[in-house]
């Protein structure tokens, strides 16, 4: 019985930990203004939020094949998360307003950002030459 209480407490603590990070990911997504900043907040929920929640469920579940599958879910998301972040970053740098020499969809927002526009414009012009 003490073992069950221990598992319950550990699982609840892990669940609360994960929920805190998932909620803070959403809050961060509303508070940040640019997609690259928002990716930072979203990655927090993707890694620690998922880890906490699924680990909490694992503690509730105990040792069984389902636990191994839940850990496989964590491994899968942790493997694919950086790749999707990289793809989003690539998209933002290729088609984003940060480096677009002609069209800046939200120019007034860009003036408030802390991004070094000259450096990005230089990188953009170098990339443009490589494009077909």
């Amino acid at each position: 019985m003490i073992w069950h209480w221990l598992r319950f407490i550990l699982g609840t603590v892990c669940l609360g930990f994960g929920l805190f990070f998932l909620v803070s990911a959403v809050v961060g997504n509303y508070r940040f203004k640019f997609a690259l900043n928002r990716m930072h907040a979203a990655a927090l929920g993707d890694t620690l939020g998922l880890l906490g929640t699924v680990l909490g469920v694992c503690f509730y579940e105990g040792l069984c094949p389902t636990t191994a599958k839940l850990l496989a879910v964590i491994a899968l998301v942790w493997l694919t998360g950086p790749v999707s972040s990289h793809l989003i970053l690539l998209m933002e740098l290729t088609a984003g307003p940060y480096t677009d020499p002609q069209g800046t969809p939200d120019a007034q927002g860009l003036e408030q950002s802390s991004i070094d526009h000259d450096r990005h414009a230089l990188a953009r012009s170098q990339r443009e030459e490589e494009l077909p």
Partner: protein
Amino acid sequence: MDPLTTLAPPVLTAAMVILALCALAALLRALLGPRMSDRIVAVNMIGTQAICIIACLVLRLREDWLVDIAIVYAMFSFLAVAVLTKMDIGVYRQWRAAHRKSRRRRQAHGEQQGRDEA
């Protein structure tokens, strides 16, 4: 009293309610997001929250096969992000090529006009 059978289900239900509210907020962010990348980030976040909800449902409903759905959901979430980003880059390059072509035509036209005037 066994806490895993009496206290755990309400905790899991509360966690699922919080996660559902978070997913709704992320959906609103996806609708509001001014740019495509904001939307894709929000959709990625909804995918993570859905995986967490499914993991809670595994224990709440005592249906172990739901874990397989969580794995498939993680794969499809990644696939959706990959396809959407690649599609957006492709659309941008097409737009860029068309823009360049029209600019070149305009430049050639302008040069001809200049020659005529001279």
